[in-house]
């Protein structure tokens, strides 16, 4: 199996790495770059725990090959430090076991970037690909609404 030399910017840090053909972006982040905030939930593009921003757009990082990311810019949950969403989700108790939280925060950030003032339905639609097994959805939605208010 072949290796590929890629250059990738993760949370503003430039990285030069060699990746295997079957290595996903998720595994590159977690195992090569030790950014374990991005979670491995289902490895099937269903649960959203591995969601990151790839060139500004939310993707399931388990469904992207690292080899495809040459020249890409990635933001993981570690790159959201200081984002009003983080404070809001803590204040509203939108974190229970915490496993879905990194993906939720990334999807919510992507939503607020394209729509700074979303309504409830738009928030639900944006988070439909982020499953919370603790089912704390109401508080998550409240948190996103508050973060939207704070950033306006």
């Amino acid at each position, binding site marked *: *199996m072949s290796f590929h030399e890629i250059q990738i910017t993760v949370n503003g840090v430039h990285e030069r790495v060699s990746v295997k053909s*079957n290595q*996903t972006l998720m595994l590159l982040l977690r195992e090569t770059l030790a950014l374990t905030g991005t979670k491995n939930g289902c490895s099937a593009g269903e649960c*959203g725990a591995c969601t990151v921003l790839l060139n500004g757009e*939310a993707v399931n990082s388990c469904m992207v090959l690292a080899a495809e990311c040459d020249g890409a810019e990635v933001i993981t949950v570690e790159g959201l430090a200081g984002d009003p969403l983080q404070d809001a989700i803590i204040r509203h108790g939108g974190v229970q076991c915490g496993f879905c939280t990194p993906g939720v925060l990334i999807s919510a950030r992507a939503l607020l970037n394209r729509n700074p003032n979303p309504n409830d339905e738009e928030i639900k639609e944006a988070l439909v*690909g982020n499953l919370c097994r603790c089912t704390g959805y109401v508080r998550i939605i409240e948190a996103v609404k508050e973060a939207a208010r704070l950033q306006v």
Partner: protein
Amino acid sequence: MVTDTHPTLPEFDYFRPESLQEASAFLAQHAGEARPFLGGTDLFVRMRDGALVPRYLVDVKHLEGTDELRFDPQHGLTIGAAVCMNRVIASPEVRRVYPLLAEACRSVASHQLRTRATVVGNVCNASPAGDTIGACLALDGVLNVHGTGGPRQEPLSAFFLGPGKTKLQPGDIVTSIHFPLPPLGCAGTYLKLGRNRLSDLSIVAVTVLAAPDPGLPSGCRFRIVLASVAPVPLVAAQAEEYLANRPVTSDSIAEAARLAGAACKPIDDIRGSARYRKSMVKNLTEKALTAVWNQLHP
């Protein structure tokens, strides 16, 4: 028994050709062991399940013509193979002229999956449940294909041969899908029944597109495409013909819906029984026909 709930992808070689010619030659030379791929949203799942173990994955997203999303008021809409569904949904021209296509894309999975999923990939996977295929068929989509013999076109009406089976040959790469201008004054809808309101695969789904046509006894031409109820996306031709040949009333709509239900050949699977599917096809078709008819005659 231990189940690996986080399977990694099986081993393969990732290949990124520089040109369509190089890509076609490579795919033809490695027929049966190389696959072109776009978003990978369906392919990677099937590879992790062990259903597909290609030796080479050929990334065709950057090749000539695959990134364009172009609307021409004379000739229609061209969507490049690499254009993701979120880009289709966000396009003002698609929303204005081909709203049915935007509606179908919006019903697919989640936002972050649609950043990768493409219309062309959805069509080429040829799943009977493919959410955008009904709209693509109803809007008379034509695929632009690059093969070892150069470029050619494949109309969707004769493209699907079975689940996952299409007219594509080794070496073929679909570079884009083209839609002529939709019929004047048309209206459409995509009704999808899933196990939840958003994001699931369909148990059954119905696409209806209708447009005024003074040459028909009914004055209106209906297109009806059914998903998840046959080995291929199914055009309900008998129901279409029935509706074309008499005045449109609630009775003729009900009869057309019955014909659509009778025409499909669903299977029992994890998402629903064949009997349930047949009955839901009838109900959804009636609902969709009524909704579209009312849109045309407010």
